[in-house]
């Protein structure tokens, strides 16, 4: 199998880690991606690890996860990131005489494997845009929308997609009247991926108490929605390049004792990452629902301007056939490798090569100063007069 590289011999960068609760899972995704690229042997691979302490370091792409247990692995070299045209990652190199010199880490494109935090919320994307470095996955705007559960829910609702009501919990607010009799509430951090910080609370008073207590998951806002115990979580991955394609549908099985939500440990701590999370794959969904969900996954991509591989999570009520768009994960764990199976099989290296090519073909931004032709400057009175 050969990886068709659109970028000649320029190395592909793989970026993972980052200051996020999903830091460790991102390392697993990054190492899988780096290994897959190494295995097909197409061009050099630069693995860039974003530490918990927010430094970028260059590491060996063939490492195992255990090398990261105590922080940056042995042999990691510090990098400096420059966010301006011609920028990117620079490695300091001891000069022959005296002071250190820097060498630019030349990259054709960067595969962004960060989950949660600034790697998936638009921060990193904006910095890479400023450096002029092509990258895979969502744009800054798409990432920001995908990470904000409140905004995404509102956008999906406005676009006519079925969504459950979702509200920002404001201290002292009245209980929303969504259902009669009222259902329990499911609370989620407004910003954040995975199921970290998700709570199910019976009474509104406890919702307010939860928010009042604060805590790392509640510090940037908490959204509440009605908890529908009868629904199951159905997920599907999609991509838009070279053509729109959809993975198998998977249905998550809830097994973790009293907790009805697929917990972080269910999802990630099973030994082989996402693959071992208990799920039905493919999910036995009626053809009609599959069609509706497929259309919805495409709409979500349009709404958020998504690139790379994204995963849309739905809530499906098997008894009634009703479904709702729950959320979108714009850089899913393992890039949803496990979903591209069976009838929807795409080899992982091919998926990656297409993502890299897309990073070049579908630029993440196009900025320009057209229109700023000096008219405003010429006609302006003195600055002092503007200050009045």
């Amino acid at each position, binding site marked *: 199998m050969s990886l068709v590289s659109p970028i000649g011999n320029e190395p592909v960068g793989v970026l993972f880690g980052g*200051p996020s609760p999903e830091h460790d899972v991102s390392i697993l995704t990054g190492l899988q991606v780096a290994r897959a690229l190494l295995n097909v042997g197409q061009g050099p691979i630069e693995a860039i690890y974003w530490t918990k*302490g927010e430094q970028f370091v260059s590491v060996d792409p063939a490492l195992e996860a255990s090398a990261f247990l*105590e*922080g*940056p692995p042995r042999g990691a070299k510090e990098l400096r990131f420059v966010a301006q045209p011609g920028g990117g990652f620079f490695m300091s190199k001891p000069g022959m005489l005296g002071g250190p010199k820097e060498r630019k880490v030349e990259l054709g494109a960067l595969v962004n494997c960060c989950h949660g935090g600034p790697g998936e919320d638009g921060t990193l994307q904006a910095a890479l845009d400023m450096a002029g470095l092509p990258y895979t996955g969502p744009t800054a705007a798409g990432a920001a929308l995908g990470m904000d559960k409140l905004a995404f829910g509102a956008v999906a609702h406005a676009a006519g997609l079925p969504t459950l009501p979702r509200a920002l919990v404001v201290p002292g607010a009245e209980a929303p009247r969504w259902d009669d009799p009222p259902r329990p509430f499911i609370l989620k951090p407004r910003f954040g991926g995975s199921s970290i910080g998700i709570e199910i609370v019976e009474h509104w008073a406890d919702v307010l108490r939860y928010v009042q207590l604060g*805590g*790392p998951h509640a*510090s940037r806002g908490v959204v509440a929605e009605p908890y529908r115990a009868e629904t199951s979580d159905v997920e599907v991955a999609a991509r838009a390049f070279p053509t729109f394609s959809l993975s198998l549908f998977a249905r998550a099985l809830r097994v973790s004792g009293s907790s009805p939500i697929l917990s972080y440990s269910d999802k990630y701590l099973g030994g082989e990452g996402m693959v071992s999370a208990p799920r039905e794959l493919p999910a036995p969904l009626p053809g009609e629902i599959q069609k509706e969900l497929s259309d919805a996954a495409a709409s979500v991509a349009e709404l958020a301007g998504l690139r790379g591989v994204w995963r849309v999570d739905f809530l499906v009520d098997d008894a009634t056939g009703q479904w709702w768009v729950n959320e979108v994960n714009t850089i899913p764990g393992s890039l949803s490798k496990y979903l591209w199976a069976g009838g929807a099989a795409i080899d992982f290296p091919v998926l990656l090569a297409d993502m890299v090519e897309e990073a070049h073909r579908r630029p993440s931004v196009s900025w320009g100063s057209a229109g700023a032709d000096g008219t405003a400057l010429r006609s302006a009175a003195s600055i002092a007069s503007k200050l009045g």
Partner: protein
Amino acid sequence: MNSRALEVVVLCASLVAIGLAYLRWLRVAQREHYLAGSTTKFARRWWLAGAINQVAFFAAVVGAVISAWYAVAAFMPVLVAVMGPFGFGLRGRTSKLAWTGRLRRLATTSAIVLAIVLGVAGIFGLHPALTAGAMAAVAAPVLVDVALALARPVESRLLAPYVAKASKRLTAVSPRVVAITGSYGKTTTKGYVAHLVGATFSVVASPASFNNTAGLARAVNEHLGSGTGVFVAEMGTYGQGEIRDMCQWARPEIAMITAIGPVHLERMGSLERIAEAKAEILAGARVAILNVDYPLLEELAQKIEESGKSLWRCSCREPRADVRVTVEEGKIHVLANHLEAEMDVFAHASPEVEPGNVACAVAAALSLGVPPEVVEARLGALPVAPHRRNIGRNGSGAWVIDDTYNANPAGAASALALLATLGDKDAKRVVVTPGMVELGVLQARENANFAARAGEVASELCVVGRTNARALLAGARAAGLPARRARNRQLAVGWAAAELGDGDAVLYENDLPDHYP
């Protein structure tokens, strides 16, 4: 072969032998935190361990001396340095040599020290250089120690930029810092604090082995994200001034001492000096948390009371303590009565829970402002520190207590108490241990005591290695406990697996890296 050619061959052979000896002793230096003097101390232990090593060392010294007259005699120290000490592998089984930057610098310095020795001898001719080489093969650990002493100021200078960076990072992120020290219980308590506080603040705890200046700076630089609300820093000490230096830039708001015991006693001198070194942690802190079950910490508490700091006395027996934690019928009872917070709750307790450490952690959480109801909710799922009284079952169904990271007498006594509760009524109960180290003048007594107390609950003792064999066997003999010996832990584990069956129980108490005899 003419005599000059022989001298050249002997000198070259010495160089090879010294190279191999350096590999061995550099590994010891690395394992012993690059403390000058440690290499020679271990060399002494090894060469005195067993008749073969004693004879070999004596022969090597004699050979080196005779080589001043007869070059060929130098082959004796060369041979001994290549082969021995017997039982001490070149590569290491549990603790391999890691070629870090620091080790490479030490290896270079050691090579320079050797070059100087040979060079000075060489001024007087080839034969004196050869004799110096033979001596150096025997005295390689001393040369490594000299290199350690020479490298020390350089290493502190190299460390300075990392410390400066960490200090800047701490100022920029400005988390509330909880600093924890103690002869034991630091790591466990750190885990408890991080857990109790984790639902309320974004918390970062320094990794287990990062408890000196270099490690702490690394923890800050590599782990402290900009959203960190609470940083829990573990601080260890090998001497006076070390914790004070760390506190100067880590600036803890809350300082805790979990225990005072005879750990590192041989380096520190006395329990009072250990307490003094640990008390440095309190200097700039707003809050002091002390486990007053230790008399020296109760004394310290009385002094602190007058200083205006907020003081939390923690205990597992004293009813008037600010936080008292007791274990009652499988539940932990936490009673807090302090100006800053009160609570009186019961929570589920796993058998591994250490009440004194829980008390200190609860005090830290409450003084950080974690609501008592949140502390209560999280008490039920305290994390278990790995290899500290962890209970499991082996393939043949025997209970296994893994207490291999414990190295202190108090913890060892708790592990024995736990062993007594496991297994069937007539079960075999076995204790496998190399004994405890770094207890200074108390080491032999503490190990003998441990073996004697094991006699009250165990049916057999398996002594691993030689380091504490004499004291452990004496203790076992006094208690009438049958004892056997195993050369290393692997063999001991194999023996226990074959010996024990369903319903039996084994306690693995402490483990020593293989640079211990």
